[in-house]
């Protein structure tokens, strides 16, 4: 084992331990804010593993998308929710935890045995490394065009949905009269754009 392999092994062990520890923290931490920050640590450790696998572009994309966008949005959601509610202690809460733990352990055992018993076909080609950007681009616009375009349509749908949600016109509190209406969001009924145009 030479120097480079040694460094690789040590970094793998550090990253794996950090990732598993942080992931356990996400699940077990009672504070939701800690869980969200630890999720960021999990994402960063995963990107470190990608780096060890010679996939630097995927690693940077992982940081940009999962840490920079997804995790920040989760934190935003946590910090902007202003609901003060004390949680009622649930009876037999340990049963739920035990069942969840059992399911997770079962899943882990199942996947672990699958990984160990499957005869993986290891590729003998040298990893493409830094030229991966070009190859990924070529795949996106040839044989992976449909999934790529579908993903962009999905994102567009999410974008339009966000705009619709953000542009809602809320009624002031005084205008609310009936109690049944209170169950819904106090929103001003809006006509469709085409209907509004014909009236004019």
């Amino acid at each position, binding site marked *: 084992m*030479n*120097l*480079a392999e040694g460094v690789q092994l040590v970094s793998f062990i550090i990253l794996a331990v950090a990732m598993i520890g942080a992931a356990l923290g996400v699940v077990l931490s009672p504070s939701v*804010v800690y869980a969200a*920050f630890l999720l*960021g640590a999990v994402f*960063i450790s995963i990107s470190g593993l990608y780096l060890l696998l010679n996939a*630097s*572009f995927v690693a*940077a*994309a992982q*940081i*940009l998308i999962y*840490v*920079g*966008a997804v*995790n*920040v949005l989760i*934190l*935003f959601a946590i*910090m*902007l929710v202003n609901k003060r509610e004390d949680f009622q202690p649930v009876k037999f809460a340990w049963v739920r935890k035990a069942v969840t733990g059992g399911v997770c352990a079962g899943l882990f055992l199942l996947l672990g045995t699958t990984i160990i018993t499957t005869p993986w076909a290891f590729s003998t080609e040298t990893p493409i490394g*830094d*030229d991966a*950007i070009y190859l990924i681009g070529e795949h996106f616009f040839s044989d992976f065009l449909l999934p790529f375009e579908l993903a962009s349509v999905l994102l567009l749908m999410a974008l339009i949905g966000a705009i619709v949600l953000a542009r809602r016109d809320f009624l002031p509190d005084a205008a609310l009269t009936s109690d049944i209406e209170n169950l819904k969001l106090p929103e001003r009924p809006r006509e469709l754009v085409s209907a509004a145009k014909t009236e004019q």
Partner: protein
Amino acid sequence: MNSGIDLQGTFITSLTDLGLPPGLAKVFWMPLPMLLMIIGATVAILVSVWLERKISAAAQQRVGPEYVGPQGSLQPAMDGLKLIFKEDIIPGNADSILFTLGPILVILPVFISFLIVPFGQNLLISDVTIGVFLWIALASIQPIGLLMSGYASNNKYSLLGGLRAAAQSISYEIPLALAVLAVVLMSNSLSTIDIVQQQSGYGILGWNVWRQPVGFVIFWIAALAECERLPFDLPEAEEELVAGYQTEYSGMKFALFYMASYVNLVLSALLVVVLYLGGWESPIPVGFLADLLGVSETNSAVQVITASLGILMTMFKTYLFVFLAILLRWTTPRVRIDQLLNLGWKFLLPVALANLLITAALKLAFPFAFGG
């Protein structure tokens, strides 16, 4: 194109000649440029703090710092020393772990980003192929640190400041990335070295700023917003939020925020120079001058002069932009949060998208001028 001076290659070959294995020689080499870059970045902070104080004083017709060192140039170093000796206070109801981790998460990505900043053909820590993309990805970690410190301070001003900072940096990252993408499209590479190479050869006329004027303006505005410089310094607006997410910080932890903001400013100015102003290239190409004087470009004396001129040019252009940022800080009023978000989402984003499309079209139409 000659490759210029290759310090790394020379260092490693001289160590292997001494009988060390090449891997070990590389290990001995690696910390040297990193240390040099960290020291350089720290000195750059001190210089920009001093510039900030002197220029702000000039803008307000004051003298500014003048007692410590010549023209008060040692004042920032003394301020740094003072901050080191200050008591490190963690407020009673603050979350001490997150409170400590926040400033570290803010400053680390900025220093790591210096990995890709070139000062010459071989004068950078590592020529990673994902270059500028790495910088964009690392810059996206910062909001987490800001949110963390805002939340952990257990103070309403801190929380609001943290949320504002995070919202601001997320919304300005998109026009920034799109402006960078247009440059990348023209140079066919994400590597900072290749981006500068693509602009070289014609001196000042070959720089990207002539081919990407819109992208240049978008990049500069977005970079100022990312650095939370004054037209966009809402997260720490004194009149509204005391000091934003820094309110509860003191001593070295405050210094980390302070350093992070100035390093970020220098880094952004460096990247403007690399992406749009030809990096280490001088306005008149050195090769042309060497030909005029009848000296070969591979002459070792010429190479040393070229390399030092490259570093000087990079620093000169960078500090021109730092000066511009400081001047902007002391002459423009602060925008409101709604104006800031409107500018980002409703103006810069569409313009950046259009700029990207036009660049792509021009690249197809005029491949000789737009890097086909």
